[in-house]
């Protein structure tokens, strides 16, 4: 499960993520991070599904806002021509060609943006 965590100004100088990891005892993988003194957001993946609830709770205890990212890959099917330009450049093998469009395993996706760039039709967005 991927989570988007939003930091306000008051959270920036606190070790929020480290506390969550210590408290829950599970590993958390950072996929994206944008942080400035005024606040920011990080995108993390919690590989073990059974810990997702605990991790969300722990983040909330730290005072930051947490959102579950169930749907983060957006395909504009009016642009997609089912060519395959995004398929083999995907380093985690998350994209498959299925007839008239592509199918994405959002769980596997690590948001590296390779597909976004590879798409000649600019049909892919990561939300």
């Amino acid at each position: 499960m991927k989570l988007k965590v939003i930091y306000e100004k008051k959270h920036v100088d606190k070790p929020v993520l480290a506390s969550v990891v210590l408290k829950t005892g599970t590993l958390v993988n950072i996929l994206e991070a944008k942080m400035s003194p005024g606040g920011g957001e990080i995108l993390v993946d919690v590989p073990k599904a059974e810990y997702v609830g605990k991790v969300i709770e722990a983040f909330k205890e730290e005072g930051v806002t947490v959102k579950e990212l169930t749907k983060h890959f957006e395909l504009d099917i009016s642009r997609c021509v089912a060519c395959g330009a995004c398929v083999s450049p995907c380093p985690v093998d998350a994209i498959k060609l299925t007839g008239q469009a592509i199918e994405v395993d959002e769980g596997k996706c690590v948001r590296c943006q390779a597909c976004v760039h590879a798409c000649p039709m600019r049909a892919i967005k990561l939300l």
Partner: protein
Amino acid sequence: MEVLRKYEEVNEKIRKGDVVVMTADEYVEYVRRYGVEKAAKEVDVVTTGTFGAMCSSGAFLNFGHSDPPIKMFKCWLNDVPAYKGLAAVDAYIGATAISESRGIEYGGGHVIEDLVSHKEVELRAEGFPTDCYPRRYLETVITIDDLNQAVLVNPRNAYQRYNAATNSTDRVLYTYMGTLLPRYGNVMYSGSGQLSPLYKDRGLETIGIGTRIFLGGGIGYVIGEGTQHKPQDYLATLMVKGDLKQMNPRYLRGATIHRYGSTLYVGIGIPIPIINMKVAKTAATPDEEIFTEILDYGVPSRARPVLRKVSYAELKSGKVLLGDREAPTSSMSSLAYAREIAETLKRWIQEGRFTLNRPAELLPIHKEFKPLEVRRYEPRVKDVMTTKVVSAKPEDDIKKVAKLIVTHGIDHVPIIGPEGKLVGIVTSWDLARAVAQDKKSLKEIMTAKVVTARPDEALDLVIARLQQYRISGMPVVDEEEKLVGIVTSDDIARLLRRRVL
């Protein structure tokens, strides 16, 4: 060779509604099951299709005359420059021209798609004022319906087949064959294989000047061989034209190839009448028997090394063997759309909406494709490199190397191992690090993985590597990795000064 059916007979059957048409996919299967003799007897026409990036595409447009009139000297459509070396209000918008404000994200291909979609397009023109054309400037909005003519004329489309691409280097490459992952991480290909129009009439016996085709969702015509036509190597190409006003934006798509440029995806379908046994056989060629080569796009040269021969069946399977490893494959062109085009053309023929043209002239079956030889002097590495290189041995003492750098006023000291082979490099920065970190041996501070140049290499490539690795010089080595010189940004700067001033 015995004629199995004439164009007139096929067209008569189309008019009566009893023509037998199969897509190339269906025909390949039919021949596999029942044999080519039976198929040749029964099937009148095989339809083909391809849908992919075709950079040599564009459209002639006629805007009509404004009042007061203008002799357009330069013009832009949605900020994309169109070619104006034509009469006053004729222009050619090329697929790869790019927007002056948005760059490659919007190009001539997108302009063509927007025109075909009946969207409004901004036209801006600068005049060359004359007594008969006094206007100096013009800015307005047009749609395709305002144009007198909008004709797609593509100098090179529908490559019979195309090479596949992979990447031996350590970094991601962004090429016209798409994103190529490092260390042979994937293989990209293009072309529809057994649906490919020109592969299905390999002997070019039915496709020629005047052949009526499916072009961008409308009707088009073959007007000749395409540029770089090389049929003897199964690299035939076509020049085609068609009325843009009747086309469909589903089959003409503006596209952006990341860090490469803008282009146009073009849909083309060609009907192949089964006029004799030879055509009946070539039209039945399956993906398993259509071969191309996987080239290493990591080598930035005209002669890219061939890694292996590969069939379209393998490419379409999603993985190929490269050495002892499997690499995933995927396509730049759309097989789904190629199939759709072959199906659509089949339906058009069955419904009597599309008849076949006998070509006025066939295309050449042999054509030389010459390279461009640059006859001006172009400096190579050996012309600017320093041959008297100050070097050191791995076991040398750091202080000695520091002295060399100071006495000779240099920045790079190549480290030479046994038999004169290059084993590393030390720069003044490495020495600073040695002092800071209290390192004693040269081996500890030298860079062992050295970026090098070859004496015959073009300077452009060396400049690109200097930038890529953010370095200021590199040793020059021969085929045996023996040091023959050193080339630095100073050498190149000196050369530029000599040439410019």
